[in-house]
């Protein structure tokens, strides 16, 4: 073969850099995809801050915050049942037949009371169907409402404060103590056990240690 018979290259010279670029770039892309999914697909991103518009402009900030109504005045089943039931229209009308009785903002409530049709509230804290959550045991164990729901007393429109993901649940189930408050402070949303120096193990009113379930059938059945 002669010197001058050099074969013309099919690929241009810059293509020599492709393997290097791929070697460096592919892991970068992969890692960023993983990180993006990790962050943007997690309930922390998708769920926290979900604040749907409600049919009645009910302000928790006004009722629970300014007026200082106890959570249990309306959510009366929270200590006894799995659900913290949304109050029946009757409860609203208990006050609003006197207070703000003609306010146009309460038109829907009055209509509901007269027609017997329920008000269609939009659910904010949506657990998946396969997770069984029971309010009564958490409230009776001294988990403050704010631990899961945030400072409802400061929200004009209720939004989701915590991710309510399985990992988030388990964080507390593995180490519940920092989130426990004295039982009479459960609905005091501003109570900070760390600041108050509350140690659940030393509380004489607690009859048993708190040992929340961590096995599957504790919540999934």
């Amino acid at each position, binding site marked *: 073969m002669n010197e001058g018979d050099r074969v013309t290259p099919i690929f241009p010279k810059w293509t020599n850099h492709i393997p290097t670029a791929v070697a460096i770039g592919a892991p970068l892309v992969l890692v960023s995809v993983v990180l993006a999914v990790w962050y943007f*697909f997690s309930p922390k991103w*998708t769920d926290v801050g*979900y604040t*749907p518009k409600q049919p009645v402009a009910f302000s928790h900030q006004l009722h629970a915050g300014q007026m200082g109504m106890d959570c249990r005045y309306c959510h009366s*089943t929270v200590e*006894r*049942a*799995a*659900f913290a*039931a*949304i*109050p*029946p*229209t*009757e409860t609203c009308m208990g006050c609003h037949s006197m207070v703000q009785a003609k306010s146009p903002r309460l038109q829907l409530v009055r209509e*509901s*009371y007269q027609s*017997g*049709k*329920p*008000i*269609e*509230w*939009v*659910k904010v804290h*949506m657990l*998946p*169907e*396969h997770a*069984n959550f*029971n309010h*009564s*045991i958490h409230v*009776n*164990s001294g988990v403050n409402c704010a631990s899961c729901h945030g400072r409802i007393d400061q929200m004009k429109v209720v939004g989701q404060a915590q991710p309510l993901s399985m990992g988030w649940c388990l964080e507390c189930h593995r180490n519940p103590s920092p989130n426990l408050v004295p039982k009479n402070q459960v609905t005091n949303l501003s109570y900070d056990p760390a600041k108050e120096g509350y140690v659940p193990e030393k509380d004489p009113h*607690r*009859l*048993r*240690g708190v*040992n929340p*379930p*961590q*096995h*599957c*059938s*504790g919540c*999934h*059945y």
Partner: protein
Amino acid sequence: MQSENNQEKSGKKYWRSLEEMAESPELLAQMKNEFPSGAAELEVTPGVDRRSFLGIIGASAAFAGLTSATGCIRKPAEKILPYNKRPEDLVEGKPQYYASAGRFGGSVFGLLVTSYEGRPTKVDGNPSHPMSLGATNAFAQASALEVYDPDRSQSVLKKGVAQTSGRPDAKLLKTTLAAAAAEIKATHGSTGGQGLAVLLEAVPSPTLLGLLREFQTTYPKSTVTIHDAAMRWNEMTALASFGYANAHLFHRLEEADVVACFDADPLGIEGDVVRNSKMYATKRKSVDEAKTMSRLYVAEPTFTNTGVVADHRLSLRSSAMGEALLALAVQLASKGLNLPAEVIARGKQVSTANEKWLKALAADLMANQGKSVIMVGQDQRAWVHALALAINSALNNLGKTLVVRSSPLPAASPLHELTREINKGNVKTLVIIDSNPVYTAAADLSFADALQKVQTSIHLGYHADETGVACALHFPRSHALESWGDLVSSDGTAAIVQPVIEPLYPSLSDVEFLAGLMGNTKNSYELVQAQWKKSTTGDFDSSWRRWLHDGMVKGTVGETFSAKPELSKLAQQLEGLGTSPESTSTQMELRLVLDRSVYDGRYANNAWMQELPDSVTKLTWDNAALISPKTAKAKGIKTGDFVEIKLKQDKEAILKIAAFVVPGVSENTVVVPLGYGRSFNGRVSTGTGFNGYSLLFGENRFAFGADVQRVSGTYELATTQEHGVSDYSYDTTVGKEAVESRGVTREITLAAIKADPSLEETFKKFNLLDPKKHKTLLWTKTNTTSGNQWGMTIDLNSCTGCNACTVACQAENNISVVGKKRVLKSREMHWIRIDRYFTGNVDTPDSIQAVFQPMACAHCETAPCEQVCPVAATVHGVEGTNDIAYNRCIGTRYCANNCPYKVRRFNYFNFSKENDADNPLYAMQKNPRVTVRFRGVIEKCTYCVQRINAARVESKIRGEDIIREGAVVTACQQVCPTDAITFGNLADEVDSRVKMLKALPRNYAVLSELALEPRTTFLAKVRNPNPELESSTQL
């Protein structure tokens, strides 16, 4: 062959089907498969080939991706609809319990109905009611689904045509009823009810019967007819002949050390089954402490639940029962019992082939006078009942083990008398209250034709059934869970029937209907209250509230007859009975029986009952002509063949029906369960089974001289008897598959317990490997000594195989129904499978015995299923439960394959969604505390973990970490009428009943050689054979 070695080793060979006994190659090949044949096969709609199927899958996956891409941005908004005015005492999400009562299979007992936000979801027994004592039967369990039957009647029909289009019309119901009342008054008012007839079931309701008396006062010439599958006419006739007018027998099995049943099934389907089972069980459970046990003798033509648990079973045709009883009387007289001379004289004329059996029974009865009872089945003739009563009386049992009580029912005539009157043209108006005679009447009555001769026929029924569409007028009936009522049980206890839900459709209860026909428009609440106000002194309102709370009316006991029977009357009844050839003839006997799943046909449209495997045949969705292997061989009949049964009496009747060959049926006998093959257009009942009523002649459900011939064609019968066999093994020594006995079910005798109290020697023959020889476990054993450690025992000695647990589990745990085609592919979903094993020689029916063994997830401590799950969907809980997180399951079914007990069920399709689509109301029955499973996941017994968690929450709120004994009752344990199932905390050293039972010598683990350490263990069955009858003592 290893199987033979094993047979020698364990003494007895157990098998589930004739194929298994014969070790048929097809069955062995099936057992070798990873999954039962057909179960794992892909089902593709016909016409779609595999390639295009994959294309469709690909396309739908792409669409699913699109929708989920939008879906992941935001979950769809959900609404919360709170109550407008919350009902008093209601806490959202917490169940409420209402005491009520119901009548199931002829027995009335107290109920406790569970309701979620006004939706009844489960029906259980009322623990304080003496006829229920907390237990129920399968029928009562199934009534929770019955109320949501989508085919229930929803509107008034005139000549079978619905009078409303679209929405049900409550106004029309009232106006039509008022018009009917006016018409009755116009036609019959002046004649005092001449030509007016009322037909009803044997409902012992004081309010209904009070209204009926009122009706008869208004129309004194009207007639009352009772037509009911559970009505014991012959027993009533026999009792009347002894001077007990309008009476029935009440049995007290808790007092009986020897029970002899002649064609009777007191633990299965006849009479007060729940109470009888409870009381019978107390006499069997005494084996552990007192080392004593009652002895049960059963003579019957086909296996009943009572026959399966019997210590001695005699295979005897129904027509030969009376003669056997006569022969027994002779034996008893020869041992010194004082019986009327005429009876003995008559008895000496009969020859019986079963002298030895009867002699042994006679000796036992003589030794247990006052502590024994002879029970005769309802289908036996009146003289047989009379004879049994005479013997019981002579044995001093009357007033002790059985009591004569007055019946709350009015004097009434049977259906054939009514039919005769109709055919004579004497009936102008017929009122039918919740009865379906067009379907259930004997064929020789031709009731459907007779009904057309009645000018005005008015029907009240839950379904627009065969009778409903044939009547001039049909009214929809409210379910018992929807209306007020009252019922009296056979022991005299009265209870108020309390509604739990408003009627789903405008409908009438029995009492509203009858009152309405008299122009009384009061509702059932007012009518029932009015009835009880009559008999109450003092503050009615507080008594009423107390009755509703307790579930029974305080102080109601009914009447008991204390006079001795006039035995001299017995001889009259025996006169004129010639020597019948029936007991020895080789002619075929036809025996029609009430079905254990659909009863007389009333549960035919209930999907749970249709899919429930029969206790003995394990048939689902069908009935079949049962025939013994020997007779079948002689006639060339195989299981699944069509046979034609011809019966010629007044006229000829023919039924073409599929045959099912099953051991335990008497020779030359064909048994046909009733209640199937209904022409009522129900979406569940359509196409199931064959109508046995077409062979029913007269009042007796057995007939002689049937002609049974094989005809061309075969029929697929979905039996589950071979599903979940765990006895398969591959014998390496000869390189051959075999069905190997591995001591899965264990039977011992009372004598063995007495001789070997620790049972170590007795159990050796069952153990392939001594459990004590397990050296090291591959897996770490879980903690069993602290916290809540759940465990269960199932006492095979008390289990009567009644199936109540299977249905209760289905109701509690939202278990889907799959349909016949899928049962054929082993895809049924029941979490509790009740295995039935036969043992004995198939060619001699007397030697055949059977054993029941309920099998559900045993929650093994070293569970093989957990070890193979690739996604850790099934893992071990800290409390010893074998958990499944449905959302993690990806459906590999490795766990089901690796489960030695074969108790894991796979959702091959979206069964729950299909169930809801097929029967839209079924969703209302679902238990909100249990996940409804979807396609592609495994499910199995969870030990009712939702109940454990509910109890845990309550106990923690109370401040206790350990759940108290008795706070968790599983659904199967709750329903069990013999308390065979015990559940509790194994770590509880003090109170735990289950721990105590597990310490008994007869406690064993199935397949203990595998060292699975199952949390569910069994207590071996104990039989108490009579030493005089050697053949059955070889255990």
